[in-house]
């Protein structure tokens, strides 16, 4: 053995390691993306969820028994196997998570993951990367997102299932004793930074800076607030300009954005001059520390949502695709369970039932999807 042999051993070992490193990534390109995405998204969710004193996911002690009726044995929770992956709206998150828990209690043996990353991000995962089976959304899908779905390797045609109604709630801290009702215009100006102090809203209010908390651009709540309140202030050719509204919302100086509504809850709770907006369920759960501001004089409640007088209530959806539902019967079973049992549990979670016509339409869509 001489020095030449030793150097050979070195080089051989180095070369083989290099080749192994180069070959491995080619072998599994798609695999790393999904786990990394899930864990990255779960961490902020888990972080955010434990911030609120009372967790959104309360053990469903008052959950109603699953709807008796024509339950196809093929789609019974205990009959299906495999995992279900859902992601999307932070507003729909507590509802989906409750449904997932009940589904598992009824005998489903697989894993259901529900990630709270914002409606936009949920559609990104559903349509652009094809990682999830169901997308939770607090707004309708956009045409650009439908186009992305069609452009996937195995194209997807998103099917909408309406599951409930949310009253978008504007909240202030419980210590705030002056702001009781705001008009849509005042809200739009506050959240775009055109009004920076409370006394610019009303001379009787204190002269303190308004601390703005809101969801980021990935959130369906953001899109809806833009569409229903802010873009009305930015008119282009007489029509609301969503892009200008979005730019104004994101450009507010000093505003805090988070897709995790629990972070917003914590922020508004602690600041006497803070204001924020999110789904009704998050307000409902923290009623002791937050106050809901009436919009155009109407406070959010079951009555005002049902009769349509609350100006900013919006539908909640879950989206899936017929091919996925047929290829993965556990997804179809979960959606059926969801639609059958959501009305019995939705008020407990903190939202409002969707109109009966929309519920029947959702059920029809399900039947069409599994039988096509």
């Amino acid at each position: 053995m001489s020095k030449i042999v030793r150097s050979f051993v070195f080089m051989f070992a180095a070369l083989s390691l290099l080749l192994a490193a180069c070959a491995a990534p080619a072998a599994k390109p798609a695999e790393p993306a999904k786990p990394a995405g899930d864990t990255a998204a779960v961490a902020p969710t888990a972080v955010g969820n434990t911030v609120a004193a009372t967790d959104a996911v309360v053990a469903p002690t008052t959950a109603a028994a699953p709807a008796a009726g024509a339950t196809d044995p093929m789609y019974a929770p205990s009959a299906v196997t495999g995992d279900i992956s859902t992601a999307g709206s932070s507003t729909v998150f507590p509802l989906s998570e409750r449904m997932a828990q009940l589904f598992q209690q009824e005998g489903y043996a697989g894993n259901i993951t529900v990630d709270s990353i914002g409606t936009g991000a949920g559609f990104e995962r559903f349509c652009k990367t094809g990682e999830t089976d169901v997308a939770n959304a607090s707004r309708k899908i956009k045409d650009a997102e439908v186009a992305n779905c069609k452009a996937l390797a195995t194209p997807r045609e998103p099917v909408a299932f309406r599951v409930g109604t949310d009253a978008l709630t504007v909240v202030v801290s419980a210590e705030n004793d002056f702001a009781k009702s705001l008009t849509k215009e005042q809200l739009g100006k506050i959240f775009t930074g055109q009004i920076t102090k409370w006394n610019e809203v009303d001379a009787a209010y204190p002269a303190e800076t308004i601390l703005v908390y809101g969801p980021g651009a990935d959130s369906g709540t953001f899109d809806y607030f833009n569409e229903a309140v802010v873009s009305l202030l930015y008119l282009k050719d007489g029509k609301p300009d969503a892009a200008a509204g979005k730019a104004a919302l994101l450009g507010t100086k000093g505003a805090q954005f988070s897709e995790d509504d629990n972070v917003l809850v914590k922020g508004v709770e602690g600041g006497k001059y803070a204001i924020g907006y999110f789904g009704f369920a998050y307000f409902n759960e923290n009623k002791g520390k937050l106050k809901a501001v009436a919009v155009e004089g109407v406070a959010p409640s079951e009555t005002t949502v049902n009769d349509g007088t609350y100006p900013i209530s919006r539908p909640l959806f879950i989206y899936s695709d017929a091919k996925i539902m047929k290829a993965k019967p556990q997804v179809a079973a979960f959606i059926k369970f969801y639609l059958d049992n959501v009305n019995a549990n939705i008020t407990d979670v903190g939202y409002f039932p969707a109109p009966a016509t929309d519920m029947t339409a959702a059920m029809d869509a399900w039947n069409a999807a599994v039988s096509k």
Partner: protein
Amino acid sequence: MKTETLDLTKKPRLGESVIQALLFLAGILSIFITVAIVYVLGKEAWLFFGNPDVTFAKFFGTATWQPGIGHFGILPLATSTLVTSFIAMLVALPLGLSSALYLSEYATPKQRAILKPILEVLAGIPTVVYGYFALLFMTPLLQSIFGEAVEVYNMASAGIVMGIMILPLISSMSEDALSAVPRSLREAAYAMGATKFETSVQIVLPAALSGIGAAFIIGISRAVGETMIVAIAAGSGPNFTFNPFRAAETMTGHIARISGGDLSYNSIDYNSLFAIALMLFLLTLVLNLVSQAVVSRFREKYE
């Protein structure tokens, strides 16, 4: 007569050679990984700077960071990082140095045996726990002292708790530096009539300055790179302000928040994260180089 040449070189053993090769590989692996990281960061950041909307003037000059709507000023993130790190060092440096001085000069061996492990425990607490400590304990404490001026998410409580986290690091490195000063210096000082305090502060501390300087700079690097504490407690929106009681997102916190959502590859948002990461990397690199320069410049050699 046949003369045999005697080969006196060491007889190499195959096992030894293989082990040496493997250890050599382990050594260059770290270099390889560093080069790979720099390459990836540089390539993606290059895509970001290559975008026609992004100019260096905008990046370093403007004070709004919202890539979604075309604002690319890194100043708000940078000032927040600087303010939180500054507050962290304000807390960690005096306390760390004092505890190091006590442990090396004044403590009896029994006290050292108790205090040192407890200090190590502080270093072992997960940073996410520190984050919650900042949000749920430090912020209400600050609010009770300073009143309404303190927002729920603010840089001060994150900075203070970061200081507590860095404290064991500075303390142990400073203590090593102080202990390395030879006894002869101390004994000479006592012989001249100096008190214990005068010896510690005027003789031993300056002698150990290079080690303490290195500890200080490593502490800053740690503070600049800290993510979890600032992600939880410092705020979730970029804000250009020097007021520590306001919420402002740091560079690391911003990367954590935006990566938690879902970004399409090659969008301007996605590439902007790499640009921020590159800035962080360069900052830490500069700090490391400065620390090496400080150590070699001030190092005192004893016979």
